[in-house]
């Protein structure tokens, strides 16, 4: 097997496409705004051509200099021409294998392979691109060599029969779209981007013009104020419907044909309508779990199950490829069954949740209690007495805090530690005790006054987007007892990634 291999011969094309994607905005800007001023300026017209030419040469050079070799214990990658690099990646260190196929990849029967290990900023290797068969073979190889006990030498065993844990039919994907706010987020982001990118306040003028025209049209009709309100409501409803439709469309593109399967204690997720993604992660690499239930999801009687892996992925550079979601949408029973299947010793859901002490509810209100008057004071300057309306938020935040406290709780079992909370958007977050990295017991002055404490549990791979794993406002003795028990348990168990 110690033969150096090259990428697929078409790989230069995909490297080029990747580079063009990065430079597409400057290039368009160069073509549209650069050449406009002076049609006789040769260099302004030639600029984009030269830029693309340089990129083509770079892509071809990369193809000729990138070689990989599959060794017994790992992968060796040699790359670079002037600045050469040699990288050894042991199979046992690879946490996640991602295979990515866009429409163009599918046309050429190739795939992009990404190997990720724990920590760091970038994937260990991005192989752009391998033929589909080579990519599958590599994935299969890592799946087997990466296990703790290396298989007897010889041929790579065939892909084992996989066991489907969850598949989403079309109706579920549509429900997923209805329950998500992606459409709204995309519209808002596009609006913001257009505002920034388009030159000379073009957006601002467009918005002004259309709103003026709309108002002009409305005043021309000489509506009463009731019909004005109705029209505004109708427009709002239309916007809501359209953004939901966009959400459904996005969900179809991203999650069509979603399938979660398990083979050899490894989980694989396949999804995507146009761009097909396949990610696999070993079951023991899962660091923490999050179940979520939004309002619309609750109406539809659905939840979602997300996981944290220790794989490197920057929040700002996240292209949604990492395996983060095990069940984008599933019934609560299906989610629980999935967790029980993957964590056989967890006894999920916990038989008894310890509620948040009733005396602690007002402490959830504390931010609202302080911020609402401040907001009212800040609004006083522009709006005068109308700012008093902001104080209506006071009972509202109090009510929310009380409801929140009613749904908050924790369960500290032998194998699993879980917290839950939220009211409109409910969440459950849990991790195996083996996966905890550090413990922190903290007491604020209020805590010391009331004799309570908060216990923070730290896990790897937490990107700060999910609620923290913390047991809030426990009685100090309880917190101390759990802290000591966990410290003792962790000392006796080795970290298993």
């Amino acid at each position, binding site marked *: 097997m110690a033969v150096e291999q090259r990428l697929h011969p078409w790989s230069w094309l995909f490297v080029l496409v990747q580079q063009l994607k990065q430079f597409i905005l400057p290039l368009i800007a160069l073509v549209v705004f650069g050449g406009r001023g002076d049609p006789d300026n040769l260099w302004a017209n030639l600029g984009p051509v030269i830029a693309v030419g340089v990129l083509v040469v770079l892509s071809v050079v990369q193809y000729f200099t990138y070689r990989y070799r599959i060794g017994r214990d790992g992968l060796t990658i040699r790359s670079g021409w002037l600045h050469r690099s040699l990288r050894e990646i042991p199979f046992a260190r690879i946490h996640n294998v991602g295979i990515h196929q866009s429409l163009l990849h599918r046309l050429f029967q190739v795939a992009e392979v990404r190997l990720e290990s*724990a920590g760091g900023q970038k994937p260990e290797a991005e192989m752009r691109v391998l033929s589909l068969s080579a990519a599958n073979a590599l994935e299969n190889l890592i799946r087997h060599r990466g296990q703790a006990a290396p298989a007897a030498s010889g041929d790579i065993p065939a892909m084992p029969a996989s066991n489907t844990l969850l598949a989403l039919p079309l109706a579920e994907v549509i429900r997923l779209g209805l329950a998500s706010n992606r459409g709204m987020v995309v519209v808002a982001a596009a609006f913001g981007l257009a505002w920034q990118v388009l030159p000379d306040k073009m957006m601002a003028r467009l918005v002004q013009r259309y709103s003026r025209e709309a108002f002009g049209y409305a005043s021309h009709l000489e509506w009463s104020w009731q019909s004005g309100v109705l029209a505004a409501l109708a427009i709002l409803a239309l916007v809501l419907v359209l953004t939901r439709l966009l959400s459904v469309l996005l969900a179809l593109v991203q999650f069509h044909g979603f399938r979660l399967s398990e083979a050899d204690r490894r989980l694989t997720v396949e999804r995507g309508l146009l761009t097909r993604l396949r990610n696999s992660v070993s079951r023991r690499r899962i660091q923490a779990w999050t179940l979520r239930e939004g309002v619309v999801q609750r109406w539809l009687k659905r939840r979602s199950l997300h996981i944290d892996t220790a794989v490197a992925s920057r929040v700002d550079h996240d292209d949604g490829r990492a395996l983060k979601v095990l069940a984008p949408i599933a019934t609560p029973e299906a989610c629980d069954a999935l967790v029980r299947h993957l964590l056989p010793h967890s006894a999920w859901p916990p038989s008894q949740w310890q509620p948040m002490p009733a005396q602690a509810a007002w402490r959830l209100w504390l931010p609202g209690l302080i911020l609402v008057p401040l907001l009212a004071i800040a609004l006083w300057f522009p709006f005068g007495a109308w700012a008093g309306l902001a104080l209506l938020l006071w009972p509202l935040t109090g009510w929310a805090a009380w409801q929140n406290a009613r749904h908050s709780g924790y369960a500290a079992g032998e194998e699993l530690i879980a917290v839950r909370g939220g009211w409109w958007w409910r969440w459950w977050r849990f991790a195996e005790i083996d996966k905890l*990295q*550090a*413990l922190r017991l903290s007491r604020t*002055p209020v805590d010391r006054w009331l004799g309570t404490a908060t216990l*923070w549990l*730290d896990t790897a791979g*937490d990107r700060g987007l999910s609620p923290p794993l913390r047991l809030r406002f426990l009685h100090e003795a309880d917190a101390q007892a759990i802290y000591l028990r966990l*410290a003792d348990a962790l*000392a006796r168990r080795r970290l298993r990634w």
Partner: protein
Amino acid sequence: MSELPVETPDTAPTTTQDGTHGWQPVPSRGAWLAALGGVMLGIPLAVGAAFISQASGWMSPWLTAPAALLIGAVLGAWVSVRRHLRTRWKLDDSGFAVRRGNWWQSETHVPISRVQHLDLKRGPLERGLGLATLVVHTAGTRQATVNVQALDAADAERLRDRLARQLDVDDAL
């Protein structure tokens, strides 16, 4: 492991200062360094005070800024020294723990098997006082690093050696 967790210095009479066994204080000579760090609090306060008095025209910034600087420096130094003197660390079979804070108290515990790597930092001032800062890294996220400033240099090295020994035994990753 059969060895003792750490060779507790027999000559240290302050070990049981706070009544619980095993918790070790950091040397009080490091309080000067903590005070020096705390004095810096005066600078943002002075800038803020100057800005507010300039904007409101209530008092001359030439008066408020030095006053805020002085108050901030004294306050910062006082809080930092108190915080420093209350810092305790402990190493036993279950792991390494740090206790700190007076108003906002915290106790952080890192099991030895979760230690990923260790840094021992010694700035010029710390070297002069025979002190060192130990930084313990875990694979976690929110509490990925736990640091103890102004440890006794010998203690810090013993701690590092003891915590690092486990790394050779356990291949954590």
